[in-house]
């Protein structure tokens, strides 16, 4: 077995035993990237100096970073023409926390994290390692695909409406969206400030806990980060699920959910029951309003957040403009892709006078209701169990021209961002075409520890990684 196929905790064990050194690890990944990147196309930029940086003293396990997290001295493009040549003058707080780790590269994504397939990258389409004709999901598709293809040991993604969990589910890896405020957003290029959260994408639950340990924590540079006692998320992984009350919200198993996915998730529920958890059906009535609410709030915030890309101080600037209005209009028309423009226009519309009350204000009210409903549910249940995505990975090109259908890919994940809750996606099998299915565990605010030990219990029992490997086949079905 190649080193690049190991998990981070396995690599660390070998390092501790001095069986290998960090350079061996880096070499193995570089080799793997050379082999697989031409097929997978997960990277926007690859660090050519990785080995040198180990020689210069970096000691952490290397990592891949979604390209909307600012890295000093390395391009941060958000997979947009707008930032094609942008180099951030500062490091995101999570990058400061990971400064001991070599960055293997910056990973592809939907432009400005807007999308569910990574097809909206301005530079390249990333392919799903399990079947190269399929999308890896999105928007953190590059991160999930790179972890799945063993091109990076682990990666950071960002999740605004499912952008960590859905691609993790599509690529058969573990993805955690932390509680809003647990991980600093400072240096994460904002899509929707009240929903965005950085989180780990890893090969297994233990790695997820290790990476969360590294990135979580209050940051005085982010006013929305929350002061809580630091925790060691690896400590209680073995705790087990006995007596744990898990709710199964009916609304997540209805129309639009693929049958094989539904069956797989119900199997997961059964498994938990066998392990001693108490499974009970429940309702999340606000689910039906979540998608509309999400798109109003996310687009409203995006329309304002993306205003700074105006061609004045950095980023793409259109040539031959006669006045300032033209400079704005042309730079933004040429620099942004279709989907980004669609959302900016939508967001501008819902905030404009005369429409504000009907859309934005109403969405905020629904948001409060969503929060309250989850709060009530967590008085009764420890966790909720749902599919991560209504389907497995779809074929490249099938939804990219149908925005509404693409938006539906987020149906199982957006409520969690609206409520600011943590949720994790865990692989739980393959469909008949060999594509991974993922289930989602949703917890109360700051219940990451519980999410992780519950996920760990399943993973240990089922051992997805040992049973299944990405195929890198390319059969157009």
């Amino acid at each position, binding site marked *: 077995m190649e080193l690049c196929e190991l998990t981070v905790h396995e690599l660390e064990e070998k390092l501790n035993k001095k069986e290998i050194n960090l350079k061996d690890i880096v070499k193995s990944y570089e080799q793997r990237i050379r082999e697989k990147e031409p097929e997978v196309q997960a990277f926007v930029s690859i660090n050519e100096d990785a080995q040198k940086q180990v020689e210069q003293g970096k000691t952490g396990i290397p990592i891949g970073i979604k390209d*909307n*997290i*600012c890295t000093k001295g390395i391009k*941060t493009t*958000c997979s947009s023409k707008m*930032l094609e040549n*942008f180099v*951030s*003058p*500062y490091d*995101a707080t999570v990058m400061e926390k990971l400064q001991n780790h070599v960055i293997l590269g910056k990973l592809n994504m939907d432009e400005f994290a807007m999308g569910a397939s990574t097809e909206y990258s301005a530079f390249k389409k990333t392919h799903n390692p399990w079947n190269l004709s399929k999308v890896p999901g999105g928007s953190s598709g590059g991160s999930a695909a790179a972890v799945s293809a063993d091109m990076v040991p682990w990666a950071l993604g960002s999740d605004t409406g499912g952008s960590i969990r859905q691609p993790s589910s599509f690529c058969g890896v573990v993805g955690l969206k932390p509680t809003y405020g647990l991980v600093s*957003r*400072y*240096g*994460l*290029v*904002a899509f*929707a*400030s*009240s929903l965005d959260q950085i989180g780990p994408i890893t090969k297994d639950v233990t790695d997820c806990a290790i990476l969360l340990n590294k990135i979580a924590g209050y940051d*005085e*540079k*982010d*006013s*929305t980060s929350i002061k809580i006692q630091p925790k060691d998320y690896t400590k209680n992984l073995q705790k087990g699920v006995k007596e744990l009350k898990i709710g199964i919200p009916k609304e997540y198993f209805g129309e639009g959910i693929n049958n094989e996915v539904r069956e797989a998730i119900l199997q997961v529920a059964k498994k938990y029951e066998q392990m001693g958890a108490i499974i009970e059906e429940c309702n999340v009535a606000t689910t039906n309003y979540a998608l509309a609410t999400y798109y109003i709030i996310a687009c*409203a*915030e995006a*329309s*304002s957040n993306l*205003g*700074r*890309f*105006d061609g*004045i*101080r*950095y980023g793409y600037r259109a040539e031959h403009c006669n006045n*300032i209005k033209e400079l*704005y209009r042309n730079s933004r028309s040429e620099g942004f892709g279709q989907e980004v423009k669609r959302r900016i226009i939508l967001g*501008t519309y819902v*905030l*404009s*006078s005369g429409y*504000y009350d009907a859309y*934005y204000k109403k969405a905020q009210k629904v948001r409060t209701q969503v929060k309250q409903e989850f709060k009530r549910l967590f008085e009764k249940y420890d966790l909720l169990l749902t599919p991560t995505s209504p389907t497995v990975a779809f074929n490249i090109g099938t939804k990219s021209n149908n925005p509404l259908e693409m938006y539906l890919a987020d149906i199982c994940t957006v409520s969690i961002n609206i409520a600011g809750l943590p949720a994790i996606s865990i692989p739980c099998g393959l469909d008949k075409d060999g594509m991974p299915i993922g289930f989602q565990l949703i917890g109360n605010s700051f219940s990451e520890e519980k999410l992780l030990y519950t996920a760990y219990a399943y993973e240990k029992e089922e051992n997805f990684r040992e049973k299944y490997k990405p195929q890198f086949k390319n059969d157009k079905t």
Partner: protein
Amino acid sequence: MSNGDYETIVGLEIHAELSTKTKIFCSCPTEFGGEPNSHCCPVCMAMPGALPVLNEKVIEYAVKAGIAMNCEIAEISKNDRKNYFYPDLPKSYQISQYDMPLCKNGYVEIDTKEGKKKIGITRIHIEEDAGKLNHDEFGKKSFVDLNRAGVPLIEIVSEPDIRGAEEAEAYLKKVKAILEYIEVSDCKMQEGSFRADVNVSVRKKEDNKYGTRTEIKNMNSFRAIVNTISYEAQRQINVIENGGKIEQETLRWDELQGQTISMRDKEDAQDYRYFPEPDLGLIKITKEYVEKIKENLPELPESRKKRYISEYNLPEYDANIITSSKYLSNLFEGALAICKNPKSVSNWIMSDIIGALNEREIEPDKIPFSAKDLGDLIVLIDKGTISTSIAKKVLQKMFETSEKPDEIIKKYGLVQISDEDTIRKLAHKILEANPKSIIDYKSGKDHALGFLIGQAMKETKGKANPRLLDQIFKEELNK
């Protein structure tokens, strides 16, 4: 109908930069000047991913202002984004406060011809300043300087309680004085740290509905504001009298032409798409916090004025003028502490110092000497070391060179001659040279004495002790 049948209604939105050391959402210095873009960081340059963190001093300063202007302080308020594109606005939105301002429902008292009047304060909210555009002399390029971007501001919005230019000026001066006294803003109008948007409308006195108003933005001199209001009110009256209608619009004051000009090229009705700033939490203020600030608030101009009248017997007019500026008032108190002569200090400020300020066209904060220097100067007069007329010269020198009064006196040899022998010798000399004056004096023409004293002063360049001169000339003439 004549102008007298109309009244002019003015509302003012004052923007005052707060004098906190650092900016409102980052730790860059607020210091004026500096190389372009040298007081900047990822936050105030709106680099991707950078986030604002609200400077607590800004809240403190704004609450101080709110209390000093008799406002209610909101227990909960929030920041909102005001979205618009302009090159001096790096984030493409200004973080301001929309529907939940920090302070509201206050007032400021002004003096008018009809007596005291309360001008209502609708609200005071916090926001960030924008950067600056420098247009190059070669024509085609503009340069963005973000040193001012993110400097904290408070916006003080008045009720439309102000009638006419005079009240507007009194109100502006009062607000400026209050902000200076409580030391939350240095209110330097030339540097743009105190400026106002002016809303003007007119109505017939018997009407109780307001007329359509026009707005003149970003004015930073009292004189220009007064001229603008007078001009704009007259323009509106003329339009109405000629059967026209006032259009609600934004105007610009053209200083050279002395008129308001329509800014028609401006955006068709801006929609700022305000929404709550998701990067910042709610601002929560406790009653204890407000109480603590209230307790430590410095004495306000109104209170000082009353004290000057009751304790030092200053005329109300003088007390008003001195307390209208923190710098003049501090000068008064500082000098008084040294010389213990309130009448004299007040007179010096009211005549020579204000005169010199006007002549030199400088503001009281630019007085180049200290309160102690003025006190020392008055002590020198009171001790008879120099005469009042010499003191006036010394004061001019103090304005020119900032030297200490005793240094000036020494350097230019201005010490008063109070030695009796010297004065008598001088008197003999003058009398010898002016025999006609002696005859005049003896024949009862009193002006002859004045002439002789004048000659002696001329001879000594004003240094002779005038009391002694008078006495000795009389003695000699009556011999």
